[in-house]
């Protein structure tokens, strides 16, 4: 039922049970997935506001654009691989199989760890080259936005590590289906966020 149709019904007119066992208007997805989807919108708002702040601050005269290091392309590749492996793991559990599940699911997380490590290496190189956070707002935004993105990945890795422990301790693939699906959704989302951030940072 569409939202418009829902809110135009006249509840005082119709009596009796509406919608059978399924309450009308409920979303046909597991509750955890609904919650994660709402949470992803909240995270999108956070990154959007950082981006708005970035563009507004950029207009001021002391802004000196930072030329982003080429290693970011390599790091982006690591995050893409991470997402690909998660998607692979998701396809495996969806096909009711468990072959290669451990390798793909755990591998996906490890590539995310490599990505964060790569980001730290870039931070360190930038520091060594004298691009300090305090020297220019463009630098500050670079550290801030990449840092906030990495923190979100760390949050995902915490959930991933709990599921990985279950997987390694012999839990059935079926019981981890939802965890794998949610991790995959979260990783794809953070990949998109990263690509947008990378595009903004590189082109301004």
């Amino acid at each position, binding site marked *: 039922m569409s939202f418009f149709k829902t809110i135009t019904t*006249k509840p005082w007119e119709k009596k*009796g*049970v*509406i919608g059978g066992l399924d309450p009308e*208007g409920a979303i046909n997805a597991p*509750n955890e997935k609904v919650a994660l989807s709402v949470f992803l919108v909240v995270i999108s708002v*956070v990154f959007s*506001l950082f981006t708005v702040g970035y563009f507004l601050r950029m207009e*001021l005269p002391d802004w000196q654009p930072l030329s982003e290091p080429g290693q970011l392309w390599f790091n982006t590749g690591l995050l893409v691989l991470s997402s690909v492996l998660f998607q692979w793991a998701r396809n495996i559990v969806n096909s009711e199989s468990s072959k290669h599940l451990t390798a793909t699911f755990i591998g996906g997380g490890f590539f995310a760890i490599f990505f964060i490590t790569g980001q730290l290496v870039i931070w360190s190189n930038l520091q060594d080259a004298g691009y300090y956070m305090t020297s220019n*707002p463009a630098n500050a935004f670079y550290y801030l936005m990449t840092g906030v993105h990495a923190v979100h990945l760390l949050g995902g890795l915490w959930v991933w590590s709990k599921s990985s422990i279950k997987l390694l301790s012999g839990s059935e693939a079926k019981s981890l289906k939802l965890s794998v699906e949610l991790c995959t959704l979260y990783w794809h989302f953070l990949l998109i966020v990263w690509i947008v951030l990378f595009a903004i940072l590189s082109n301004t």
Partner: protein
Amino acid sequence: MAYVPLADRDHEMELHHPHTWIGKWVFCQDHKVIAIQYGSIAIFTGLVGLVLSLLFRMQLGFPETADFIDPSFYYQAVTMHGMIMVIYLLTALFLGGFGNYLIPLMCGARDMVFPFMNMLSVWVFLVSVIILMASFFVTGGPTGGGWTLYPPQTTLAGTPGHDMGIVLMLISLAVFIVATTMGGLNYVVTVLQYRCRGLTLMRLPLAVWGIFVATILALFAFPALLVAAIMMLFDLLLGTSFFMPAIIESGTPLDHNGGSPILFQHLFWFFGHPEVYIVALPAFGLVSDVLSVHARKNIFGYRMMVWAIIAIGGLSFVVWAHHMYVSGMHPYFGFFFATTTLIIAVPTAIKVYNWILTLWEGDIRLNAPMYFAIGFIFTFIHGGLTGLFLGNVVIDLPLSDTYFVVAHFHMVMGVSPVLVVFAAIYHWYPKMSGRMYHEGMAKLHFWCTFLGTYAIYLPMHYLGFLGVPRRYYALGSTDFLPASAQDLNTTITIAALFVGASQLLFLINIIWSLRSGPKAGPNPWGAASLEWQTPDTPPVHGNWGDSLPTVYRWAYDYSVPGAHQDFIPQNTPESEEPTVDAEHFDPDTDGSKADV
């Protein structure tokens, strides 16, 4: 994986029944206990905020009679009062307190969707309050930069609490936002997914609609405050210049350069204005239910009320810059925000008309919840009308930063929501405690609060017209202010002390009645919504005994012609609807169970 209806998997739901005292009252996952924890922490914090306001009112009414109220303490008290009341009292109480208590009960669910995360939410909220309170004990004390925390003033020497105070405030806010997000996800998913059989969205009581939309606003608005807090912490602790411009502090140039304080203002108010409705929308919803039950009439214009809640929620994100008219914005920018601000008055006015039309020809029971609910209509109309003045740029400019503004926002988002809080606590107290409160004491509490707050805020409008600026420790001698302005200030302070003291009536009443109030019974008001139909009062863990309820009608079947009682519970099927011969039906004598 697909969605499984609540009714289909009721048998497999795990309820985490507590086995120890700590499990039952401390680390409890029952939404009702969590609601009481949220409410208690919020009310305790609110009492701190209330005492702070009385202290700074002492300085304004009786200047320099209390030695410890120096300018620094004054600004700290004003700042902490504002932040505590808006965030830690009202937001936490409406969403964490009433949201937690009412959503699962009104939705016919056994608990929230994620009880563990719900429990975590209240404990994280407590941590945020502890961090906030810790700022009273650190070097320099809490921040005194005003509740809006505008940089660069907040972070510069000369502003009290510019070192640790502001840092703790920002950290506390960030932690609070984490707690709100955890709670908010729970409320939204519970309303969407955990409604019982037959409970369509348009059969939900308006209390749930108000809390639901306010929660969505909170989820989308608090990130702006989080972003602002993080960037300001970077400026403070790591020396960046997001908001900090080049500035000289006590003759010494600081390392900051080029930052934009206006950027902070935009972020702050992008959160700050929806925050008004995060507080107001639950109040609108709760008061609608209280009015309907005690007027023995269905709420007038239910659909319009729902649409108005949604419209206000949406519009609240496009009015924020009306708080910034004096910041030097482009005239067209001001024009846009003045227009959107006036547009938001339309759905708000619809709600007010509908409340009044709900009362029209109702079989009104004038008990304490109804007193507070009707009192709310008065104060909200009053505060809303002064909002129309301030929403216009040309009128706002001369009135900006005067006591007129203080009077406006206290009437509209201070007194009005607090009156609803009292209405709601008295209304649902019998369900929460199983006991009735003392009616006479509650009514006395109402008159002291209602008349007392008018005695405080009505004169403030006049002070604002005179041009008395807000946030001043002392007025000094100025030509444009008559000496009588000080007399008015003294009167306001006496009224504030009276209102503050009269809140003891409320505290004594609800604490005393917990043990000594008469037994209430399951549905003393004769209310139709689901929370009054639980098999136990107060409801036990799991709420609904062996089986979940089924809903057959909306929540406002009051005084239905031909019905045996003047209310029909939501879970009464049409076939079992008790009816009498319509010719012999007398609503004044039949089923007046609600006469308390």
